[in-house]
């Protein structure tokens, strides 16, 4: 995925981030749109109509600057503080919360929460020179199907695959297929789920052998794009892994919708 640099001054940084918040709900990553286009060429019947509708949706949203999906979600943001950032003295939580609220107002985003828009913000320090920001609006049509499994530490990957395929099967086409499936394995319960959400931010359609096998297994379910039958149930499976505890393995599963909205950029503040 393209990682552009966004330049900002301390006095306009909130506007810059708010602009990215709006873009995150109106424009999908180009690689993802291309993948949907490729799928629509292969597809037939209703599945093809649905995929063509999705492509048309992307065109309209970008051209008209309106949200791709009415569920503009809860914003989940990863903030990886660079070594040379001058943001060290800034309250990043407040900055991003205010920027998300500003984006909501200016971009006509939906009030989808029971209170004021309240983003989930992960703040990390990194060894990179620049600060990297990843913005993902999480819609609940798909977020509702997120799972955590605490499984046997000796579980084979075959067993893990079975659990994941069963999760996708039981979602039964609800979370807007074709899916982007994010898997987190290892760490604590909360880390496995966070890893599975983070896996969805990796949009490159390059897969390891295990990811490829799992993608094939999921596509054998034949729920299809749109969920009404077809060969394209999922577009991607991405796995992120950490060491596990010797007494158990945490498995997080995110069944992301086709409209996997991610905005990632380096933030250069001067």
């Amino acid at each position, binding site marked *: 995925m393209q990682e552009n640099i966004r330049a900002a001054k301390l006095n306009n940084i909130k506007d810059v981030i708010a602009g990215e918040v709006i873009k995150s709900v109106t424009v999908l990553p180009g690689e993802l749109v291309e993948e949907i286009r490729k799928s629509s060429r292969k597809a037939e019947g209703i599945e093809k109509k649905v995929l063509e509708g999705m492509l048309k949706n992307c065109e309209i949203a970008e051209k008209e600057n309106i*949200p791709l999906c*009415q569920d503009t979600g809860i914003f989940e943001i990863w903030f990886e503080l660079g070594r040379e950032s001058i943001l060290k003295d800034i309250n990043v939580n407040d900055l991003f919360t205010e920027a998300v609220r500003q984006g909501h107002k200016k971009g006509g985003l939906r009030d989808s929460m029971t209170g004021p828009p309240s983003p989930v913000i992960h703040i990390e320090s990194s060894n990179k020179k620049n600060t990297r920001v990843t913005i993902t609006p999480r819609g609940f049509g798909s977020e509702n199907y997120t799972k955590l499994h605490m499984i046997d530490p000796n579980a084979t990957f075959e067993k893990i695959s079975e659990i994941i395929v069963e999760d996708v099967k039981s979602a*039964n*086409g609800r979370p*807007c297929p074709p899916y982007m499936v994010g898997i987190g394995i290892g760490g604590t319960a909360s880390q496995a789920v966070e890893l599975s959400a983070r896996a969805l931010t990796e949009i490159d359609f390059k897969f390891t052998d295990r990811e490829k096998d799992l993608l094939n297994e999921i596509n054998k379910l034949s729920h299809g794009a749109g969920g009404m039958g077809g060969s394209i149930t999922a577009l991607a499976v991405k796995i992120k892994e950490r060491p596990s505890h010797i007494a158990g393995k945490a498995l997080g599963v995110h069944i992301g919708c086709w409209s996997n909205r991610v905005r990632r950029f380096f933030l250069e503040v001067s």
Partner: protein
Amino acid sequence: MKSLKLPLKDRAVLKNFKAGELVFVDGVIYTARDRVHDLISKGRGKWPFELKNNAIFYCGPTPKPKGRNFGSCGPTTSSRMDSYTPALYKKGLAATIGKGPRSPEVIESIKKYGGVYLVAYGGCGALYAETVREAEPAGFKDLGPQAVYKITVSGFPAVVGIDSRGGNVFKR
């Protein structure tokens, strides 16, 4: 291209729609989702339109942008409305429009009272916004995106998910 004109003038036309086929909705439909269904089921309000021969679209739109007719307005997951739905088909509701499969009880009520369930394309809020010609709040106006909107659509694409004979596109 098959068109379903709403509200229905003649219920018999629903027999012509078969699970799995693409149709285009033309006419008036009403948005309603979780909160409105819950409030009405608890006796805290009434449907602000005649259920008979009308359609409910499970949708909570984004705010209306300046210069446009309506906000982004794709379907939400229908199964959350399953428990409320058979009673509505019993009252003559023609159609519900949403995404994803329905419960056996909903399928049974569609068969029994001769309705239809349409599946709109999930995640396509911008596409559906383009089909809206007119929109006005029709009830529960204090609920923001969960309010009932009367919207007039033209060429609104949807797939027949469950037909009046019980045909079901989600039968795996």
